[in-house]
């Protein structure tokens, strides 16, 4: 099981591939893997986005992700999982989050992966601040918290 918040860019498919070489995940034991990758888009709410600051509450975030993972493991009888989330300065096309779940069966893998993503969005203590050509704005619940400030300098 991997739960990590990482400041550096990562290649999600290499992470999944590497994880499957983990001897804890016995070859032949799992029939299904579901993976989700959320990637930063260069466009949001009608504006081009140049970069994003991903702030988080160190300590609480890890604690919440561990609770989410434990719930999903039990409920969906997962064999293993990855939750890997970026923090810091993100550029368009950078992966932001990877969730991968392994299970004996398809429904469990899909169900676990989707549920982790839902809980992650509602419980994990991350906040996004976008950099536009016109300034910066906080993105709250998919909508900007307030209008962007006037251009500085």
């Amino acid at each position, binding site marked *: 099981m991997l739960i990590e918040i990482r400041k550096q860019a990562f290649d999600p498919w290499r992470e999944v591939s590497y994880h499957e070489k983990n001897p804890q995940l016995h070859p032949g034991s799992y029939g299904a893997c579901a993976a989700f990758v959320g990637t930063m888009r260069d466009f949001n709410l009608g504006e081009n986005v140049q970069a994003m600051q991903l702030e988080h509450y160190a300590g609480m975030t890890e604690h919440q992700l561990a609770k989410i993972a434990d719930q999903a493991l039990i409920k969906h009888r997962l064999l293993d999982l990855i939750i890997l989330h970026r923090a810091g300065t993100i550029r368009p096309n950078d992966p932001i989050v990877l969730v991968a779940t392994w299970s004996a069966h398809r429904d469990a893998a899909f169900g676990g992966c989707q549920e982790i993503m839902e809980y992650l969005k509602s419980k994990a203590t991350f906040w996004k601040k976008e950099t536009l050509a016109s300034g910066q704005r906080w993105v*709250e619940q998919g909508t900007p918290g307030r209008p962007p400030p006037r251009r500085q300098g």
Partner: protein
Amino acid sequence: MSITVRFFASLREELGINQKSVHHTCALTIEDVWRDIARRPPPKNLLCAVNHEYAGFGQRLEDGDEVAFFPPVNGG
């Protein structure tokens, strides 16, 4: 008793406070801490946590607790 209070994201910027320690001799709730520091009504969508667990505004605090205030989260 001594409480650590933290603010995140847009709330941190609005209040201009990242982290603060408060000391009181009487029993305190999260709401007391908010009024004491923020000196304004809480925003409608305010979230709070005690020791990394989500908490209600009326929760009572104990010595050494870390209280955090933040806007709705937005990960993933």
